[in-house]
């Protein structure tokens, strides 16, 4: 059982503890702390990469379902075009018949003669011109429908290609996610081995670092108080707070001496 140190020994021990703690900070603890920090960083980065890969896989799956719906719409548009073409051809047929009616009216006007058939001939000419324009517009419409069908077919094909690429992205993301899980497992294993090899862990090291920092600040404060405050007052004030620490240090030194 360690004895309670005297006043002068108390201060000596206090200084030495603080100095040793400061020195200790610069060596093994700092290195171990650095290794643990790097380990923690690697772990968190790997976890973030894994989560990102999962998000990519999920987005790629959503993208594929959107591609499927869009390709389906494009195919539906292509499938509707024959019906539209048939409708347009019916309109063209109506215009063709109208043109024939106009021709027959023109013939009738011609039979009636120059004065009696004049108005009929004029109407006939106008109706025929308009029906020819209508038939021409329908021909362009049919061509346009055909172009739209061809283009929407091409769009569907391109969407299918994009879907296939999205599938590859999803597979790669799933693979990356699986790999990051493996990496996480390996990092956990490394952490365990490190814990066994050093006998420390990140929490302990952080506590040591914190205690060291406090000890350093104590040394600085003691240096500032040196000569300004009566020694007896300083010791009597610090003793209740630091006695457990000094006892621990004294025990450690006694064990070391033995």
């Amino acid at each position, binding site marked *: 059982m360690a004895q309670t140190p005297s006043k002068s020994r108390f201060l000596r021990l206090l200084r030495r503890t603080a100095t040793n703690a400061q020195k200790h900070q610069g060596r093994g603890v700092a290195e171990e702390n650095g290794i643990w920090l790097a380990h923690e960083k690697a772990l968190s980065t790997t976890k973030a990469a894994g989560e990102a890969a999962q998000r990519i896989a999920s987005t790629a799956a959503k993208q594929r379902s959107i591609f499927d719906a869009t390709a389906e719409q494009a195919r539906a548009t292509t499938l509707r075009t024959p019906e539209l073409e048939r409708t347009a051809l019916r309109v063209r047929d109506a215009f*063709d*018949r109208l043109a*024939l009616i106009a*021709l*027959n009216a*023109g*013939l009738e*006007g*011609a*039979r009636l*003669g*120059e004065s009696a*058939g*004049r108005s009929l*001939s004029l109407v*006939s*000419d106008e109706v*025929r011109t308009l029906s020819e324009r209508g038939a021409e517009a329908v021909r362009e419409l049919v061509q346009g429908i055909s172009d739209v069908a061809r283009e929407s077919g091409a769009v569907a094909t391109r969407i299918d290609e994009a879907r296939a690429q999205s599938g590859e992205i999803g597979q790669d993301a799933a693979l990356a996610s699986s790999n990051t899980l493996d990496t996480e497992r390996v990092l956990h294993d490394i952490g365990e081995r490190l814990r066994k090899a050093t006998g420390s862990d990140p929490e302990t090291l952080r506590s040591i670092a914190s205690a060291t920092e406090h000890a350093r600040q104590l040394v600085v404060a003691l240096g500032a108080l040196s000569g300004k405050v009566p020694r007896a007052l300083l010791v009597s004030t610090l003793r209740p707070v630091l006695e457990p620490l000094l006892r621990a240090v004294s025990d450690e030194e006694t064990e070391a001496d033995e």
Partner: protein
Amino acid sequence: MDQPKRGGLLLRTEAGLRFLPASLVTSVAQLPPILRVAGAPEGVLGIVHENGEIMPVVAIGPERTVLMVCSYLGEPIGLVGAEIVCAGLFDPDPTAPEALMYQGEIARPLDLSAIYTRLQTSTWASGWTS
């Protein structure tokens, strides 16, 4: 003195612009299905049933869209193979009284009498009777 305008149908054939007088053209119709007749004379595509009448169809060109129903000496004749330019009243050609002028182009009359004569004089199904 100005000659009166003449009414009829202007046609574009391989030979150029042609004119059919309104007195000979009964009507213009979409080409109905032609029933081919074995042994028909050259140029006769067959017969059609149009507006309640059965008539021979004579080709005057390669077009196959419109049937021009004509009447010659009381007999119906269908013509196909020309593009119809227009129907109406046209100015006669001052240099050739039987021809017309249309937008600076001369339209000669289509010789329907020759077509009719050929139909009448040709032997139908001659190969079968020999």
